[in-house]
């Protein structure tokens, strides 16, 4: 099953030797994160707000890119795992001495367990049935939470402890993104990526060469859901309250999908570029949220039609053309 849109052939851009290419992320990314962490104290309150949103969005987008872009599993169920992580943290943190990190990890684990539970059923569905199935799952979970009194019903739950200061929240978000980046880099730069993309491109042919598609898809699904759950947990910590509409609502799914498709799905830099673009857009149109969303939808349609590999793909194509368009 190929990715969301079929790709035009990307000419091979001459690069450094393979070993240099593989080492590159391991060398530069840690430095990047250290620099970012050091610059956090320099940000204003407004800057911290934006930074948190951006970092969380990139984390979610990285997870979705792994699943949909690299794995070909177009899921509309992001909200389910996000919400599960959020509620888990809210339930677990009852005392100021409780470890936030552990609560976040717990959120990820709960999300992963749900993924495991539905995997057998959901992976039997191919293509559009998979997509609609994940959407139905997210919506069903939301409705369940609305009705289930045990977890607060429609009004939700309040966090028992005070959320940390803004600066700490941003460091936590940065830490989560670093972890997510590590996971996704491992998944996309190692041989697992080859197996995953093989399953994406042609599941039957992958079967024929000894790959067991179910296992590969499951690993990607578990990784993505864990990261999404942890992000949800962090968001719950920030807002201090969870309720079905805000945490299990489709707006998270829409945001993530738009970020990745506009940024460039299946490309390493897609999520980051897309997130920056969309956060900038939402700040520009902060007064008009409905207009901003409508515009996002329009850009989404435009990208699918005119630049299927997103902004990053567009830049790559321009660069390749500049270098003489080798084939």
């Amino acid at each position: 099953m190929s990715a969301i849109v079929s790709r035009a052939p990307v000419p091979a851009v001459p690069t450094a030797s393979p070993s240099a290419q593989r080492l590159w992320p391991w060398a530069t990314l840690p430095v990047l994160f250290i620099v970012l962490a050091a610059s956090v104290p320099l940000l204003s309150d407004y800057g911290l707000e934006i930074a948190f949103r951006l970092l969380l969005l990139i984390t979610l987008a990285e997870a979705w890119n792994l699943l949909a872009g690299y794995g070909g599993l177009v899921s509309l169920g992001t909200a389910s795992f996000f919400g599960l992580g959020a509620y888990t943290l809210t339930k677990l943190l009852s005392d100021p001495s409780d470890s936030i990190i552990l609560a976040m990890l717990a959120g990820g684990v709960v999300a992963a367990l749900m993924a495991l539970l539905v995997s057998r059923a959901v992976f039997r569905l191919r293509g559009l049935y998979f997509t609609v199935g994940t959407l139905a799952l997210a919506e069903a979970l939301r409705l369940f939470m609305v009705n289930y009194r045990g977890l607060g019903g429609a009004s939700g739950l309040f966090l028992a402890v005070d959320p940390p200061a803004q600066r700490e929240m941003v460091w936590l978000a940065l830490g989560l993104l670093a972890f997510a980046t590590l996971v996704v880099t491992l998944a996309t730069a190692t041989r697992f990526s080859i197996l995953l993309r093989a399953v994406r491109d042609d599941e039957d042919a992958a079967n024929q060469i000894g790959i067991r598609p179910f296992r590969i898809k499951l690993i990607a699904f578990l990784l993505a859901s864990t990261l999404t759950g942890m992000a949800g947990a962090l968001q719950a910590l920030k807002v201090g309250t969870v309720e079905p509409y805000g945490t299990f609502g489709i707006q998270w799914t829409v945001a993530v999908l738009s970020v990745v498709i506009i940024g460039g799905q299946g490309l390493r830099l897609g999520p980051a570029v897309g997130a920056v673009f969309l956060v900038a857009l939402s700040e520009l149109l902060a007064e008009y949220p409905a207009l901003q969303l409508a515009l996002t939808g329009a850009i989404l349609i435009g990208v699918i039609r005119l630049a299927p590999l997103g902004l990053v793909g567009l830049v790559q194509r321009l660069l390749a053309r500049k270098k003489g368009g080798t084939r």
Partner: protein
Amino acid sequence: MWSFDVVANSVASGVLLGGMLALTALGLSISLGVMRLVNLAHGEFLVAGAYLAYYLLQVTGIDPILGLPLVGLALAALAWPLQQWLIAPLSNKGMEAPMMTMFGVSIILQNLYLLMFTADTRAIDTPYAARALHVGPVTVSAIYLIGFAISCVLLVSVHLLVSRTSFGRELRASSADPVAAAAMGVDVKRVHGLTFALGAACAAMGGVLMGTAFSFTPTTGATYLLISFAVVVLGGVGNIFGTLVAGISLGLLQSLAAMVLGDGYRDLVGLVIFLLALALRPQGIVAAKVR
């Protein structure tokens, strides 16, 4: 525990409601069956019909039921260019691209509604809508009965259109083998456009009925999308009578669930049934429909 009356009323309203659900799902079913298009904006077309009828009533005083053909035509006229400009150019790019494009359309429409009509809950008020009718031991709202009747008429009409007319032949041929149909002289692109327009019209008309029986907001579409999908999957993609049977069954099950568990669980039960249907359907049937 439950008196006969309560159960009987539940069954009756469930069945009637189910008929209306079948109409709302019809458009989705034929789009999927003929064009392999997952119209993720289907719910928004439904809500568009509801808003249109609402304002038609407010501004001109035309009764929503009488105004059904107008609403249907209006949505068909809007849907046709949408298909020709946004969907048709993507015809050779697989199934996900058009699906995501419709997702984009749904985002745009939802927010347009928000901007134009605010988030207020609305309902189309007619004097007869809430009137209770007593049919034997059973009491139902008049609108349910009217809605059911209209839905059945429309479903039968579409069925006749598809099975007896030359357009229907072209539609079925295009869905079975678009390449061969073109070689036989069928203008497949035009057939797809008309099919999409027909689907949108059905969705809009279903939306008017739903808007008269229940209330709606800019975001109500999402739930209707999934319930419609449940009906489509249960009834068989492109199978019109199957859609009717599935709609009635689902309506009935939802109604009984609401009676037993509480009204809030109505939609949840619908979704759970959908998920079960997806999970239990033999691999072969699902795989055969998917390219």
